[in-house]
């Protein structure tokens, strides 16, 4: 049988999605707000400190930038767990339909306070534009609106936390059910 393997690529991500450089996507020097302590985004050292930090208590919305953005399938990593565990609202800067996916896991989101139309937009450039517009709108709200929204969505936030706590058990049962039929 003739086979042909691709050589490995230089990057795991196809990032050629910014047409004609319309968005400013050049990398910059690093920045870290003094509010954020510990090892933010400590992907390779993920432990409890990375998921649950004191500073989460001081913010209303986590703008989660998932690893994949221009991607054919929804994709999640540990990053989306942070707001779920810390009972915060979130926007997901990730692959299209990822919000739809996490809803299938039992999680709830924050429509209409956060306009989640972006999740349905497949074109990465257009999706990013809509996300940035929504961020613009949210940061212009009075801080009291954010506080009130957190209280308004308290049931959702509590529910999401419990769903994370039960996730391993639920997924294990699902896997066992399928394998037990082999």
């Amino acid at each position, binding site marked *: 049988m003739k086979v042909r393997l691709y050589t490995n690529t230089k990057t795991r991500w*196809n990032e050629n999605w910014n047409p004609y450089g319309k968005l400013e996507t050049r990398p*910059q020097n690093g920045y870290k707000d003094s509010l954020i302590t510990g090892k933010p985004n400590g992907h390779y050292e993920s432990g409890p400190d990375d998921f649950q930090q004191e500073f989460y*208590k001081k913010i209303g919305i986590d703008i989660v930038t998932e690893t994949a953005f221009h991607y054919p399938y929804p994709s999640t990593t540990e990053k989306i767990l*942070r707001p779920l565990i810390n009972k*915060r609202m979130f926007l997901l800067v990730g692959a299209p339909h990822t919000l739809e996916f996490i809803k299938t896991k039992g999680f709830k989101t924050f429509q209409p306070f956060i306009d989640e139309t972006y999740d349905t937009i497949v074109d990465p450039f257009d999706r990013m534009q809509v996300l940035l517009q929504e961020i613009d709108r949210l940061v212009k709200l009075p801080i009291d609106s954010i506080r009130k929204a957190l209280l308004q969505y308290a049931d959702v936030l509590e529910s999401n936390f419990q769903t994370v*706590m039960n996730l391993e058990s639920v*997924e294990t049962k699902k896997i066992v059910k399928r394998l037990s039929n082999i």
Partner: protein
Amino acid sequence: MIVVLEQYINIVGRINLLEIDQDFDLLKTQLLDTKKPIFETIDFYLAEDYHGNYYLPHCNYSLTTFNLVRTFQEVDISLNRCIIFTNQPGYINGLKSLIADTKELPIVFDDCWSVFGNNNLGNPAWQDIGINAHEIERHALTMLGAPRLHRNALYNHIQKNNYFDKIATSYRGINEG
């Protein structure tokens, strides 16, 4: 999880696609070393694909998936002896594009967050913290890890509009490797 799985299947080998992604000869060697003359119904390879892959435009399978399928074909082991765990729902569609005979498809669990500890679920150190809305000081937080196009776009937008007092931001820049 492995202990649980072993109650139902015999694990012939474990395939970490992140490790072999750079060199599929490693997988070829592994498969040749573990290949059985006849695989029993309960014999399976376990593959983990949690780290994202390179997709060509308009292609529903990644280069890694392509290489996985071709390597199994080269050593003449059916992919139906493989169970793939991933967190990418729809992953099976790429495999269907590469494997015409549905009986040859692997078992795919494509919505697993908890398996193999990638997401560090079940951590006993997590606390059930309060919502405490009155403590909110900033509208938002964003923790941007390694520079990627979408993170750069967001960071540049925050910087351009001077949102730093509204959005607590961390960003690992080009000066940090």
